[in-house]
């Protein structure tokens, strides 16, 4: 079945010419990404050094192999921080998918345009307040001593809960407040997906006698499949990101045993004392784990759902 060489090379040249615009379109982005994202990767060598900052990035640093990683592993509290991170991150990943998807579908069911617009705008507000600001507000709202939330729970006979200071409730508080802060903003992507659904599909379904729930389950949801799978795969990269800013602004020493995460842990022992080598080793460990998770989920999405996310 071998073809004459010249036809093949001609065809290849034709393909090249056809694809040339694509290469040109990508060129500027490829160059910038190389400079500002790939070149800095050389800094990962710090992870294997006893890095003394003043000697400079490529100075005469001492190579210590895997010592920084071993040091991390043996630090008291490291294992509990890892466990907390995984538990908190798992629930956040799950709920950051489920809640925004649900809310975007519910919003889509609202017929009153004014209500929908208002609700859509309001849920998106907390995203713009940083955790520093929210931290101060949450201490008030969640206080066991006259805080707003406990007052409401009190109406139902619930005893005051020390959300921020009790090891029984701290993780839950972290997860719940984070989901509350971000769900509105996260619905945006799903709303964009819903917008793209062809209204004819709904009309056809209504004519076929489908009720609202059936339309939600059989039309809205399947049409969002692409974006849901995409978000799911991408979010798995966060398996070791439990949210530094949030934890840092909400935790206190009495809840270290349930609330200390890898990032806060490394911040305390690493960055405050300028131990860049240890901090970089930590970053590298996180990268490897998230790459692993994303690769597996990418493969699964491709293998079982026949879907390539990129």
């Amino acid at each position, binding site marked *: 079945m071998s073809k004459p060489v010249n036809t093949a090379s001609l065809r290849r040249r034709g393909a090249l010419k056809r694809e040339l*615009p694509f290469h040109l379109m*990508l060129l500027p982005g490829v160059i910038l990404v190389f400079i500002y994202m790939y070149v800095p990767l050389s800094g990962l060598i710090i992870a294997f050094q006893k890095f003394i900052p003043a000697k400079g990035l490529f100075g005469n640093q001492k190579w210590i192999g895997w010592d920084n990683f071993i040091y991390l592993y043996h630090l008291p509290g490291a294992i509990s921080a890892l466990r907390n991170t995984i538990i908190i991150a798992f629930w956040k990943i799950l709920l950051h998918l489920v809640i925004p998807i649900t809310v975007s579908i519910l919003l889509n069911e609202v017929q009153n345009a004014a209500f929908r617009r208002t609700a859509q705008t309001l*849920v998106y507000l907390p995203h*713009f307040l940083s955790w520093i*600001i929210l931290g101060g507000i949450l201490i008030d709202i969640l206080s066991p001593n006259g805080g707003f939330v406990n007052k409401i729970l009190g109406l139902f006979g619930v005893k005051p809960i020390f959300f921020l200071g009790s090891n029984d409730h701290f993780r839950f508080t972290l997860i719940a407040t984070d989901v*509350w802060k971000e769900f509105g903003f996260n619905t945006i992507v799903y709303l964009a997906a819903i*917008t793209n*659904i062809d209204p004819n599909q709904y009309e056809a379904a209504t004519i076929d006698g489908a*009720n609202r729930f059936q339309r939600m389950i059989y039309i809205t949801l399947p049409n969002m499949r692409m974006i849901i799978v995409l978000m799911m795969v991408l979010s798995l990269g966060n398996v070791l990101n439990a949210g530094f800013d949030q934890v840092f602004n909400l935790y206190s020493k009495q809840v270290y045993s349930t609330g200390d995460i890898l990032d806060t842990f490394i911040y305390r022992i690493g960055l405050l004392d300028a131990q860049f080598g240890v901090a970089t080793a930590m970053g590298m460990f996180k*990268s490897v784990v998230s790459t692993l998770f994303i690769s597996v989920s990418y493969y699964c999405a491709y293998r079982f759902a026949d879907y390539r996310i990129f």
Partner: protein
Amino acid sequence: MVESKHWSSILFNVLNYLILGLLALSCLIPLVHVFAISLSSSAAATGGLVNLWPVDFTIESYAYVARRAAFWRAMGISILRSVVGVTINMFFCILCAYPLSKEKDQFRARTFYAWYFFLTMLVSGGLIPLYMVVRMTGLMGTFWALVIPGAVPVYNIILLLNFFRQTPRELEDAAIIDGATQWRIMWQVYVPTSTAALATVALLSTVYHWNEWFHGILYMNSPDQYPLQSYLRTIVIDMNLSKMGANDWQALVVVSDKTVKCAQIFLASLPILLVYPFLQRYFVKGMVLGSVKG
């Protein structure tokens, strides 16, 4: 049959409005709280007496902020940064997402490029080497340090390329028969049919540029160059009391005025909140499809 369906539909509506209404209200609380403090007297605010309604109503804090040149300069820099930054982001986003949305038979190298971009989301070299590159490329201390290093938004590219893929291939084939180049197809077929997606990534970019504070502090050489969030960060964060010298407390007195802090936080949130309703019309169902059909 019809009645029960009707009845369940009403129940659903009531519950739906109720749930969404409560959720929306809960999201309003923190901002209202901040706003109420900004309109209260300083003593009431530091006494923790303000909840959702101002105590000892006064607009003194806003009068003070109005006179604060540093705040408005920072706001100006942030607006400029958002406009320039988002424009650059959108340029790269469209330009990269379009070829990557092609199937392998159209663009054989797409998988390679896709991984090339995607990998950068997974590993990064960290702060120090990036600082070094920014310095070597001469951006240190310039406005461009805020927009160039992050010019290519990989996450947004992946999002957009997935939306582009949903555009029916027939549209493109028809355009090719009409003799359109790829550049024209991108600009005249894909971009107009993806307004909701473009609005989404534009919003993500705007929010990123508006809220980002760390690069402002790291790459700028003077507080005069800080964007708004970097500026806010320096006033919002409480002083580290354990690292204070015997004469540092004066800073605490000046910084600590809670009402002024809250006035600035509130004013800083306003511009970005105005962007959303503006982009919101792209998320309203039917409009996009209507424009394609028409």
